[in-house]
């Protein structure tokens, strides 16, 4: 499987106290556990990203408990506001325990 690499879209600078949109996407098959291997007839074990979280300067902003019904290459969009500049960090947690992370700095202006 290709390397798992998150993508996020955040404005570089924002106005204090005003909502802005954040979009996130990560390449992942999101194997539901419902599919059968066509050759063996056996169920393919579940392997999904089960949790997503965005934090700003260490404080929680937005998180998602994820089930297999979220599509492959999961996409989340949310809206947030900040009062000061800082670091917006993103984290995805895989069923196998892997954690995929990325971060963006946000300026006020």
């Amino acid at each position, binding site marked *: 499987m290709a390397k798992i690499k998150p993508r996020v879209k955040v404005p570089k600078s924002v106005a204090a106290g005003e*909502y802005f949109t954040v979009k996130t996407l990560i390449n992942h098959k999101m194997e539901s556990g*419902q599919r059968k291997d066509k050759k063996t007839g056996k169920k393919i074990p579940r392997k999904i990203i089960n949790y997503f979280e965005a934090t700003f300067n260490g404080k929680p902003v*937005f*998180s998602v408990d994820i089930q297999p*019904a*979220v*599509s492959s290459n999961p996409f989340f969009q949310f809206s*947030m506001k*900040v009062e000061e500049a800082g670091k917006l960090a993103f984290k995805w947690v895989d069923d196998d325990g892997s954690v995929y992370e990325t971060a963006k700095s946000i300026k006020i202006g």
Partner: protein
Amino acid sequence: MNLSRRQALALGGAVVTVSLIPIDFAKAASDATMADIKTFTGGASVAEGGIELTTPEIAENGNTVPISVSAPGAVSIMILADGNPNPGVATFHFSDMAEPSAATRIRLAGTQNVIAVAKMADGSFTQTSRSVKVTIGGCGG
């Protein structure tokens, strides 16, 4: 279409009757969905309104159905797909830095109701539901 006066009245009456019946979630949703809602609410009563769920009326492919939800004042919103093998889809949690709205893309096993239940900051709950038709294409190719 030619309708007699009597037929037209009967039809009108039927429409009125139907529209007067509120959607009864307890009867409309599957046991699994009801169980998930109960876990989320802890058995508290669930109101209607104050929550907006946007879905396509017809999804071109059930594998990737874009949805968005918004509920002013919510701290969490749970999304359920009533007709899926497991109804759970995702639960969004919002801090005071986030607007209580989110969008994602979900899998729907067939035509069904998508349900959103919001938990408000005061601990109350509200819900809404949207029917999504999932088409089976002529050319699955």
